[in-house]
């Protein structure tokens, strides 16, 4: 099988670049701990409202300026509906759904994950800038999908 010399160079450069890229992704994910949100915790979607800690959604202080935020995403809103966190706080978000699939996106941050009924999903963010952060559902969930949002006030 004949391979043109230029094509050989082209493919070697392409494959080399690709290999390097894959190595970087692996280092990023496994050595630097920046893997995508992949929480394996399960929960009965029909009993979310009676399963601790999702029976009382809200912030729990777990360290000096570090919080766990337990939230539910449902048609068509989030609970708690408004949260305030102090400037500089690190917040570990844990979200589940009692009904259909939702998205959990804090606009302007790297927090963006799927919320599946039956599962809890998580991501962490440190709020270094004050302001009113927009949290929205970015997975179609029904007729009111476009009003499913809340805010997090950081001050």
């Amino acid at each position, binding site marked *: 099988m004949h391979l043109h010399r230029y094509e050989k160079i082209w493919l070697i450069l392409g494959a080399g670049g690709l290999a390097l890229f894959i190595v970087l992704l692996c280092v990023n*994910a496994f050595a630097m701990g920046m893997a*995508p949100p992949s929480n394996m915790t399960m929960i009965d*979607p029909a009993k979310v409202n009676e399963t601790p800690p999702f029976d009382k959604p809200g912030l729990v202080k777990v360290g000096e300026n570090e919080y766990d935020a337990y939230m539910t995403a449902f048609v068509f809103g989030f609970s708690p509906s408004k949260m305030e966190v102090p400037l500089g706080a690190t917040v570990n978000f844990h979200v589940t759904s009692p009904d259909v699939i939702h998205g959990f996106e804090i606009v*302007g941050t790297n927090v963006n994950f799927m919320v599946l009924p039956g599962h809890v999903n998580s991501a962490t963010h440190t709020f270094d800038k004050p302001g009113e952060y927009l949290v929205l559902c970015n997975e179609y*969930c029904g007729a009111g*999908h*476009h009003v499913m949002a809340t805010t997090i006030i950081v001050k």
Partner: protein
Amino acid sequence: MNIFQKEQASTVDPRTSRLSLSYIWVAFIAFVAAALCGVVQGMVRGGFLELPAWANYYQILTAHGVLMALIFTTYFIIGFLYSGVARTTGGTLHKAAIGYGWTGWVLMTVGTLMAGAMILTNEASVLYTFYAPLKAHPLFYIGLALVVVGSWLAGFGIFSRYRMWKRLNKGATTPLFVFMSVATFILWIIATIPVAIEVLFQLIPWSLGWTSSINLMLSRTLFWFFGHPLVYFWLMPAYIAWYVCIPKVIGGHVFSDSLARVAFILLLIFSIPVGFHHQLMEPGISEGWKMVHVILTLIVVLPSLMTAFSVFATFESAGRKKGGTGLFGWFKKLPWTDVRFFAPFVGMLFFIPGGAGGIVNASNQMNALVHNTMWVTGHFHITVGAPVALTFMGVAYWLIPVLTGRTLTPTANRMGMVQTVFWGVGMFLMSLAMHTMGLEGAPRRTAYTTYFDHPIALGWMDYQRVMAFAGGLLFVSAILLILILFYLTFKAPKGKTEYPIAETETPQPFPPVLERWGVWVGVLAVLIVLAYGYPIMEQIQHQAPGSAPWVTW
């Protein structure tokens, strides 16, 4: 008369033409209906239009997705591949292939009408990804299942023709077009089996109320097993046009026959065991398994690089043969005023940022920046919406005259150029707006909203107005396209139009192992078991409590 004459017919017989044309016209009817839905969505999201009470944004969105992504593409692909397989195996198809083709057409059309009726009556506003636990009417799922089964029959028709040709042409090289069509349909059948299992054994019984809950993770895994090769099912026929038809249109040759075949084998193998890259932001799949799929996904870059090289090498050698000199002189010699070349070429230009954006999407945690934002919508409009759609349009401009025994007149060609420019400019503006607002966090698949006048959301409005304007350009282009295709089908002057099939400049033997399908399907099966075996077993053995059906629209 021996239908397998060595001297190939340069056209297609009437019986095959009728079949092929029937597929292609359903494709373009679906296309124009979907384009109408698209412009309405753009106007709504741009804030220029409010829908009447009897229509809902997500219903129109479902129609746009199903008609464009599933119906337009699948019908066009079958119509195109049937005609090309006939053209390269003697200009005709045997009875069994025609029978499979028509049976498939009937099943698919019945299925399309069923699913369409459910969307129209707002019983199925679940979008074309139909994520459970949103529950559509059972007829919607049954209709889609019929579309898939019908497309399988069409695939069997192509396999049947291939086997017959092999039997009667022992030792001869399988035409490149046929080889690529067989690879495309092997990919399609393997890819659609899991989604057929999801629809038949999970969604239909659950939507009928026979089962009370559904294993969500399993349903999503089965869906995305199909969802990614689906995009290669769109792309491979466009590549067939790029590798086999366009070189002839520009008066050139196939650059390398064997490398083209290698590229298709690689596409077949590396587009299937990769579905988790659509589920990177999901719970319930571990980080390690996601990375396995990310790596396999990125390997598909290689056949795309090969295709890019080969296509431009063909352009260069054709341009030089016409007297182009210097580093870029050949570029000017290409037939820039021929829509059969110009439309796919514009599509290829879109594919450069399209491919780069795809690498971003597949890059594990980088996906968090763009997941479910308008960026993704922009991405598939500059991949399937531009390279694939423009290639199909460019093909239609010569294929329909071939099938109807008419000619592409200079005026029709000029109109086609105008149509291409409208489509290109529209897609450019729309996808640029989509990519930008996506990076700023604007969600996809969302009706007009200001999120209670949040300043960030208000900042997206200008992009949404650009989208609406570009949607208008695209709609004008779609109408123009339909008018030209109508003219080419019924009104254009009768005459002989050649079916462009290029060959290599000198005979190029290829290693026989390339055509040992059993070997490649075996390799693919091993990869599928490696990539999916353990995760699917886990999803069945340790499943989350099931989900009840919901109708939330």
